[in-house]
């Protein structure tokens, strides 16, 4: 049996986290659990982005004493994009948490079913 490629393992993990996050957002009624769902989606996407940049047998794109002409590197652009994605994920989490605190102060609950103003 041949071993699974690294990028496949990473992508399955990443997509699994994304699915877990979406299910938390769709199924749970508690805003804090939905925020955790968004956070899981962010982490999953960062893992997928890095996995997509993997090149067979590649190492981190940092040159050092062991680097020779034959050294294969993984894609550095994906690593740079993952940094961006993590920062944006942090921003989303911070803002949604702030809104959760504000809604809790207004209504005394975190259950989304209690917030009916926009439906009436």
């Amino acid at each position, binding site marked *: 049996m041949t071993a699974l490629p690294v990028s496949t393992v990473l992508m399955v993990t990443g*997509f699994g986290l994304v699915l877990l996050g*979406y299910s938390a957002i769709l199924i749970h009624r508690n805003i804090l659990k939905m925020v955790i769902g968004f956070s899981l989606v962010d982490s999953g996407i960062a893992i997928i982005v890095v996995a997509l940049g993997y090149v067979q047998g590649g190492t981190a794109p940092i040159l050092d004493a062991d680097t020779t002409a034959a050294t294969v590197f993984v894609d*550095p652009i994906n690593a740079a994009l993952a*940094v961006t994605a993590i920062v944006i994920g942090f921003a989303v989490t*911070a*803002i949604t948490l*702030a809104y959760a605190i504000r809604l*809790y102060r207004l209504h005394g609950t975190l259950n989304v079913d209690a917030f009916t103003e926009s439906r009436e």
Partner: protein
Amino acid sequence: MTGRTVHLGLSALALAGLAFAFSRLVGAHVEPTALGQLAAGYIRLSPEELSVPNVVTGILLAYRSFDTLGEVAVLYMVAASLGPLLQPMDNPVASETPRLSENAGEIIHSGHFALLPLIGVFGAYVILFGHLSAGGGFQGGAIIATGIEFYMIARVASAINVKAFSALESGVGVLFVAVGVFGLVFAGGFLDPRFLPAGELGHFVSGGAIPLVSLLLGIKVAAELSVVLERFRG
């Protein structure tokens, strides 16, 4: 309740559809054996042009540093918007959560004397060696902000001076843009780090203005994250 059942059924359907699409994506992915032209170009040019062995830092702080500037702008907007969002309200339904006990506990209190200097040194190392090895301004700034959060937990009563942090953050932001303008005037374009001598590949003082930009970015990120954390402390 039927509404809830319908909701759960539709959610399960949507998730199953997503799972199917994702499995097709994973199944269709083939690991490449060589880099694309752009990535190969970055890996070739970063050590040659910039004297930066860490190609990711070369991309973040030179080739795509305008992106990085946009990212710190996003962080700044978050820090700024949390102020009005978390302001005390006139007639809240839920009473404010009671303040935690003033005493953080023996283990955390003793631990923060031993760990805070280490966290600070590690953060500074990650920021300053970002051009040579894994690291950079964002990562190191986040580590230092972790230390500041630890300080907030260990000393519950302590106040963090949000104004001072905001002033530091704005000042560093102005310097960041100033470095960018220097690049525009003395080198190839906005935020081009090559207006300072490139130095020798792998030396601490090398890579033109990249260590400087990394330092500014680290201070800015640490200050911004600390403001965000302090806002949540209420």
